[in-house]
């Protein structure tokens, strides 16, 4: 992928690289500057110490024999190779002896340490009289400013610092030391600094190229994959390199999110298919009935009957919608506010009492065994609704039993669970796969299609059990079916 510079700078990797580079460069420059100034100061101090020693030696020579001895010593020292700078001049600045041929003007006018390095020339490097003319022309002690003197222009001098002393007879003595060494040091430092900055720049670019761009590429691949998935390919997954790094974890998490979305999507599709199928039938019936009633000539009573049928059909549709809504709410987590102690034994006797006349009318024996008062924390309404849905089903499907139809409701405590089992002795659901499917939304096993109902009763019961951290299991009862509601004993919701 070819990127222009602005495009590169738009990437996080490049921006971060640039930022780090800038920060490190700044730090490096500051560090080098600090070290340079420290070292320079140390070198100057060392030079000054050397000069002080020199001056002390010369002072002793002067004390021993006065000026002649001093001059002799200075001359001797001046001739040594790599010697310091020596200069003795009279009160007018006329150089008497020493190894300095010319100086920046004004240097010897002030006593004490020169405040800044000055340039000079040794013998054989320039002319002597320049010193005088410079000194007389410019008496002001501006050691650094020599731009208008011919000596410093064109000719190359050396820099030095020096101590200027006035001897008792008004003569001037200068002892100095060449600064060649600190200058070289400075050059080394600045070369090092340039090199370091260069390396850093190169390093930054390399880091960006190998690390930043690698990260950028991974992010690009993630965003490419997301775009593909958004484009409709929900089966697509993000690449996982196996390195186990942050990007892999990100991809893995996004992948499991995609899997969940795909699952929900599948569920939604299935539900919409089922809704379409299960609601289309009653809606079509509703419409056809209205149409047929309008078409013919009828007595007023027929119209009334048709309208009442319409209302009954609509009510059934509303019930179905309410059930769908409730299941969605429960599956979405429902509010846990409305839970409290629920006496399951009381719920069993309530529901059995509610269904007893229906069972009797259908010729089904409805029995209940609830040996003890078992209380859990939950929602009484919901549990009652789940149990009545299950009992309702059991009564419906036990009517085709081979023997006398019977439905048993048993409440018991087994281990750390409370089990509420509803068993009928009808044909049951012999097929394992069918049994597993029976609690899915809108699933009405083929044999039950003829029975009234929305196909949501068991799904709702299952959603209610999930809400109570419990389970709903369908087990074969040979003959018949056992529907088991299992509540955890330490129910916390």
């Amino acid at each position, binding site marked *: 992928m070819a990127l222009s510079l602005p495009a590169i700078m738009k990437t996080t990797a490049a921006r971060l690289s640039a930022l780090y580079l800038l920060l490190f460069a700044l730090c490096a420059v500051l560090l080098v500057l600090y070290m340079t100034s420290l070292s320079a100061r140390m070198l100057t101090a060392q030079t000054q110490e050397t000069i002080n020693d020199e001056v002390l030696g010369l002072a002793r020579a002067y004390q021993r024999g006065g000026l002649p001895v001093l001059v002799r010593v200075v001359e001797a020292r001046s001739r040594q190779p790599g010697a310091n700078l020596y200069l003795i001049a009279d009160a007018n600045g006329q150089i008497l002896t020493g190894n300095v041929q010319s100086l920046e003007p004004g240097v010897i006018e002030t006593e004490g340490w020169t405040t800044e390095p000055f340039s000079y020339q040794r013998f054989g490097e320039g002319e002597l009289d320049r010193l005088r003319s410079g000194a007389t022309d410019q008496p002001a002690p501006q050691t650094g400013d020599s731009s208008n003197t011919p000596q410093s222009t064109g000719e190359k001098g050396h820099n030095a610092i020096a101590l200027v002393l006035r001897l008792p007879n008004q003569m001037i003595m200068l002892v100095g030391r060449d600064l060649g060494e600190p200058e070289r040091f400075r050059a080394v430092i600045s070369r090092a600094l340039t090199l370091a900055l260069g390396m850093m720049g190169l390093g930054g670019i390399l880091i960006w190229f190998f690390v930043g761009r690698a990260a950028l590429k991974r992010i690009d691949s993630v965003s490419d994959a997301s775009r593909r998935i958004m484009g409709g390919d929900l089966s697509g997954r993000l690449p996982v390199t196996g390195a186990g790094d942050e990007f892999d974890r990100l991809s893995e998490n996004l992948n499991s999110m995609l899997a969940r979305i795909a699952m929900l999507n599948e569920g939604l599709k299935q539900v919409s298919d089922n809704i379409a199928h299960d609601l289309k039938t009653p809606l079509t019936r509703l419409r056809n009935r209205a149409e047929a009633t309008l078409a013919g000539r009828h007595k007023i009573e027929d119209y009334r009957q048709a309208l*009442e049928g319409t*209302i*009954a059909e*609509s*009510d059934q549709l*509303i*019930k179905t*919608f*309410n*059930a769908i*809504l*409730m299941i969605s*709410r429960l599956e979405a987590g*429902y*509010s846990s*506010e*409305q839970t409290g102690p629920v006496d399951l034994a009381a719920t069993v006797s*309530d529901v059995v*009492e*509610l*269904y007893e*006349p*229906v069972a009797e*009318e259908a010729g089904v024996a409805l029995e209940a065994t609830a040996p003890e008062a078992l209380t859990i924390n939950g*929602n009484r*309404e*919901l549990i*009652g*609704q789940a149990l*009545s*849905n299950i009992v*309702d089903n059991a009564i*419906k499907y036990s009517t085709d039993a081979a023997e006398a139809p019977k439905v048993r409701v048993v409440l018991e405590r087994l281990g750390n669970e409370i089990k509420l089992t509803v068993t009928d002795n009808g044909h049951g659901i012999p097929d394992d796969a069918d049994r597993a499917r029976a609690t899915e939304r809108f699933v009405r096993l083929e044999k039950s299609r003829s029975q*009234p*109902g929305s196909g949501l*009763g068991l799904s709702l019961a299952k959603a209610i059990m999930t809400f109570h951290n419990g389970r709903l299991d369908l087990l074969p009862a040979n003959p018949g079916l056992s529907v088991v509601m299992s509540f955890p004993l330490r129910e916390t919701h």
Partner: protein
Amino acid sequence: MTAPQLSNEIAYNGSMKILIMEDDREAADYLQKAFAEAGHTAHVAGDGETGFALADAGDYDVMVVDRLMPRRDGLSVIAALRSRGNTTPVLILSALGEVDDRVTGLRAGGDDYLTKPYAFSELLARVEVLNRRASARESETVYRVGDLELDRLSHSVKRAGREITLQPREFRLLEYLMRHAGQVVTRTMLLENVWDYHFDPQTNVIDVHVSRLRGKIEKGFDKPILHTIRGAGYMLKGG
């Protein structure tokens, strides 16, 4: 089994003045019209503030209040009215409709709760029962409807002087029907008030209970007293 016409039976109860607080214009118009057809006068308030002002000023028998309204939501209107000493019975309409919604609605001062979508017959039956002028029987110890008599203290039921033995639940069922004699009582109202459950039973459990009760109070007597109102529910009515 006779099936008297719905509107005739409802007109029997006398006219009510109803306040509807509902922001959905179409729904409100429909309710107003339907209440008028049932012989009642209904006023409509399109938002919470207007509803509060009308309720505070007028003397209504029942209010039907939508939970979600502009400017002021239904629950806060009810709470404000209650704090001002207004005891007009309120039926809350809600599109939310879960158990806890019902509980919060009733806690806010509502007297009954109905979830959208609902059947108008259900709403009408509930509004009629809420009417405070009709619910004065709460304190009576003996209910009488025609020749049927129920003693709430001794738990005895007699018809034309003849003792009728009822199961405890049948007694409570009859007690509720007699308290609201002359009014339509729906199946869900019975399930709520006699069994204390608020869900829709899948089958006709309530019908079977009612027909059992009917067998006991009508068998051997010449006149039907417990009537089925088609598309709505039941009504106990003597004479």
